[in-house]
């Protein structure tokens, strides 16, 4: 595997995770518990889709076959998407979404913190730009985690269950393979084991503040590295890609 191939894959991982999580967040539109949350969640969706555009455009450029962000978002198959398993989890109730976003934003936050000093300029710039957005996503989801955790008995139990249910998908965030190896050597990518240490600290801290219990260690599902998914992604993709697939000739 060449460095360029590895980097393309790395960009897809980042871009796809943002895209799929952004698509999930946009499903909340007009469904929030209060108007302010409709705004906040749309905001998160906007940031994430924006991030995915940068990374997919860059992946297309690196590939050199003329594929645009839209070609990559709308014309790849399910088994070519390298998003995290966590990003494709269904929204569920508001607490499920809060827990998912919390776990994922903390990952992005520490990943982007580390990637700010990537040797690849585009990756470094992307990280630097995204960190502001992701800081907000992490704050927003952490605040809700705390509110729900330390709110009513009902909300406490619900959000605890959400965390427990999602836990098995968090190992996937930190798995590495040859792609990481090659890019770490070049100073482009970062060691996710290091990112995990920071992630753990953040997670522990907020979970404690939320009067919640960290889920027990369990078997961790894999997927991201091999574009392996749950059955949920296919439905999301069918809906997302429909118009581009139905009218391949059209400009929009």
């Amino acid at each position: 595997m060449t460095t360029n191939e590895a980097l393309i894959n790395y960009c897809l991982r980042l871009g796809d995770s943002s895209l799929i999580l952004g698509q999930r967040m946009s499903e909340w539109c007009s469904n929030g518990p209060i108007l302010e949350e409709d705004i906040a969640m749309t905001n998160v969706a906007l940031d994430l889709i924006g991030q995915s555009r940068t990374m997919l455009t860059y992946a297309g450029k690196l590939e050199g076959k003329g594929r645009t962000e839209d070609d990559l978002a709308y014309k790849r198959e399910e088994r070519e998407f390298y998003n995290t398993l966590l990003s494709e989890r269904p929204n569920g109730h508001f607490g499920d979404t809060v827990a998912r976003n919390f776990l994922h934003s903390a990952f992005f936050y520490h990943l982007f913190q580390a990637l700010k000093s990537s040797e690849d300029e585009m990756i470094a710039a992307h990280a630097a730009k995204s960190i502001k957005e992701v800081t907000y996503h992490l704050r927003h989801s952490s605040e809700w985690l705390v509110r729900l955790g330390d709110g009513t008995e009902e909300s406490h139990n619900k959000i605890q269950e959400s965390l427990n249910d999602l836990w098995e998908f968090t190992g996937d965030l930190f798995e590495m393979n040859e792609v990481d190896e090659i890019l770490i050597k070049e100073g482009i990518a970062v060691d996710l084991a290091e990112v995990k240490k920071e992630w753990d600290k953040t997670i522990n801290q907020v979970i404690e503040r939320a009067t919640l219990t960290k889920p027990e260690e369990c078997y961790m599902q894999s997927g991201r590295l091999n574009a392996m998914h749950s059955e949920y992604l296919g439905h999301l993709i069918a809906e997302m890609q429909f118009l581009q697939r139905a009218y391949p000739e059209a400009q929009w």
Partner: protein
Amino acid sequence: MEDLRKLEEFQAKIDAEIKIEPKDWMPEDYKKHLQRQISQHAHSEVIGMQPEGNWISRAPSLRAKVVLLAKIQDEAGHGQYLYSAAETLGKSRDEFIEELQSGKAKYSSIFNYPTLTWADMGAVGWLVDGAAIVNQVSLQRTSYGPYSRAMVRICKEESFHQRQGYEIMATMANGTPEQKAMAQDALNRFWWPSIMMFGPHDSDSPNTGNAVKWKIKRETNDELRQKFIDKTVQQAEVIGLTIPDPDLKWNEDRGHYDFGEMDWDEFWRVVKGNGPCNKQRLNHHKKAHNDGAWVREAAIAYAEKQKEKQLVA
């Protein structure tokens, strides 16, 4: 009489184009009228998220998705400041929402039509926001301060939305035959409901009297409608779409377009709850509100705990 004197002072301010502010004295009917109008306006922004929200997941490009998301976010924001403006009149957002859900308060009837193709995202932006803007530009000079200021802020964003909607229509009208057909179909479906957004003819509009005297309303329904039509007909021509009105033609004498008779039976039917999507829209709103009840309760409980902690500390 004290009240009469106040009323005269109030009218004098209005006449002198001085804005009425929340702490100022105002006639009960003025307040009621504004509560109704501003909250209806807020509800329209909020319910209006649904027909457009219907297409976010299927937006045909990432750019289109971002533009649509941003637009809907703006609308939620507009809802937010309009509720705040309405709350200055002494009713809470919860009360307004209850009126919406019980059917006591209305929202713009246009949102009771379904969005069936991507071209509808164009038509809604171009026509629905276009019509709204004509009204809102006029309302920037409305006599109630908070409402007027909200309108100034909203107008800036709204004209942006209108342009984006028109762009979608233009792209599709110049696209593949299927796209052009979708664009024309969207125009056909949204044209008449859009021009009815301005409400009944002036001659059939009993509430206008006081609203004009109090300068809540600065122009009449028919005046605003004519402005919108004059502007929009030309825009349709530019992109090669046909307004679905055989009676539409330029009237040299009036310096305006003449146009055909609107279907007021349909208008009133939809206002009264029998449009294609009235039930769907309200049920959607209720469901989201009910599903979120435990979240709101948790937020309140948490805030109270925090307050107690601060008191103890």
